[in-house]
């Protein structure tokens, strides 16, 4: 038997049992719309790629990281003793930031292309849930080195659940493992970061990707308005996939450049008795809500400002989350335009408060 015959009969054997040819046929028929805004279709894939980078570099860090009382010492060892440990840690930190950025670009492009409309409501909701879990990934991962910055960031961050009336203190103590941020906090954040959050994220991601396969890429309203004969598309296999992978390669190069040219720093070991370092500020993706709460605090001082701020904030997020249910028309009428303005308002206020936040760091 020639090798061609052998591989054919092997493929036949596997195909009969796993149905590979059905998958191949599905992939052959999958099409992606081509239009002036096609560029934004890559950002979901870029987010996915960066998540894979996180899994990979995360496992590598897990090889030497020791949670609990030795957390700082083990990160110091990774950064300064193990060969290229600094690079792997830097890649993990940079890819985390780039992933949040890519998810946000993906979210806003979905919003402005109105890709959340029927039948893609679950895609929007699961995507928002993924962003939510990703920010908790970011928050919990930030504590892992247990240096000064991570200590104070966690201390401040946990004041937000603590400000919930009645149950707040109990929730914050449960998350912290006691009244103060300590080795118990890093130990339970570690469990959250490497077990609980992946266990939530992976099935959500599977669901999200399955929905993309089921419904395909959404065309924006301007494309939908065109007659079918004028709409263009290209096969996913191999045309779009090839470009998708090229984007992954570009992302990897940008990541490698950032991680090696701007290595992530490690501060001094945390010390509950030393004052907070000057110029301490939240990560950029928490800067906007932080600044908004500060602004509301100026208008409405005291506890009421905090509660009011959290209420206004929750209402805004709820409004954002429920967009598929009140902007569901396929025509770009007045209601559609209103959603568009809401999106513009969200982008502008996010950018403005972030800029103000960085501007006012002392």
């Amino acid at each position, binding site marked *: 038997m020639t090798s061609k015959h052998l591989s054919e009969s092997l493929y036949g054997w596997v195909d009969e049992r796993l149905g590979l040819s059905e998958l191949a046929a599905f992939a052959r028929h999958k099409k992606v719309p081509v239009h002036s805004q096609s560029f934004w279709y890559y950002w979901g894939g870029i987010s996915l790629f960066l998540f894979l980078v996180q899994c990979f570099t995360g496992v590598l860090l897990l090889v030497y990281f020791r949670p609990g009382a030795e957390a700082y010492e083990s990160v110091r060892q990774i950064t300064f003793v193990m060969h290229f*440990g600094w*690079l*792997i840690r830097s890649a993990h930190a940079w890819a985390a930031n780039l992933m949040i950025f890519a998810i946000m670009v993906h979210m806003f492009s979905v919003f402005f292309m109105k890709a959340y409309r029927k039948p893609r409501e679950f895609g929007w909701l699961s995507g928002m849930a993924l962003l939510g879990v990703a920010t908790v990934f970011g928050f919990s991962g930030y504590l892992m080195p247990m240096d000064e910055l991570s200590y104070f960031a966690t201390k401040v961050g946990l004041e937000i659940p603590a400000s919930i009336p009645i149950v707040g203190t109990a929730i914050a103590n449960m998350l912290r493992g006691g009244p103060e941020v300590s080795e118990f906090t890093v130990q339970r954040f570690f469990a959250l970061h490497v077990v609980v959050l992946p266990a939530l994220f992976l099935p959500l991601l599977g669901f999200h990707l399955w929905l993309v396969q089921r419904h395909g890429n959404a065309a924006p309203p301007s494309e939908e308005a065109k007659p079918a004969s004028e709409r263009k598309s290209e096969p996913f296999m191999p045309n779009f996939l090839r470009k998708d992978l090229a984007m992954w390669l570009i992302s990897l190069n940008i990541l490698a450049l950032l991680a090696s040219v701007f290595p992530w720093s490690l501060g001094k070991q945390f010390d509950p008795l030393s004052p907070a370092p000057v110029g301490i500020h939240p990560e950029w993706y928490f800067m906007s809500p932080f600044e908004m709460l500060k602004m509301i605090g100026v208008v409405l001082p005291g506890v009421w400002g905090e509660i009011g701020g959290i209420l206004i904030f929750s209402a805004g997020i709820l409004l954002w989350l429920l967009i598929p249910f009140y902007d569901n028309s396929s025509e770009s009428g007045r209601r559609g335009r209103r959603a568009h303005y809401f999106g513009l308002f969200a982008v502008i206020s996010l950018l403005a408060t972030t800029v103000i936040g960085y501007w006012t760091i002392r």
Partner: protein
Amino acid sequence: MSENNNLPANIVVEPGETLTRRFFMTAAGAAGLLYTAALAYPIYRYLASPEEMAMNATAVTEVTLKDAQKLAPGSVLMFKFGTAPAMLIHHEDGRWISLTAVCTHLGCTVQYEPQADRIHCACHGGVYDPYTGANVSGPPPRPLKLFKVAVSDAGVQVSRA
């Protein structure tokens, strides 16, 4: 090149073109390989770091055991020679013997038994002579290696024989 086999017969491939295509494919393959190597090298070195540290530790040729000269006759002191366990035996007759404590069969740590006057491996029942390290019975294929021992007032110096 095999790519040409896929071309329909009526397409004539200029020799120059084939060379360009072949050159391009080779160059792309080489670039891909270099790229993969550039990614794999730091990861390999990162994972191999403890192994390299251990290599530095095994380069040790002698160990000084402080106050070990006070070891009572008929007893044993376990210590690390480099990274591997080793034993120092002070025999009832006053002789000092030091040997590796790693069984030559499957690498378990062996034990000196003063009552039976033997070195025994609990994993598969290997037995060694406590004076020479010779494999006496059981599965061990080779004897335990002996170290040189020098006893002084400050301690015991063990070195590679």
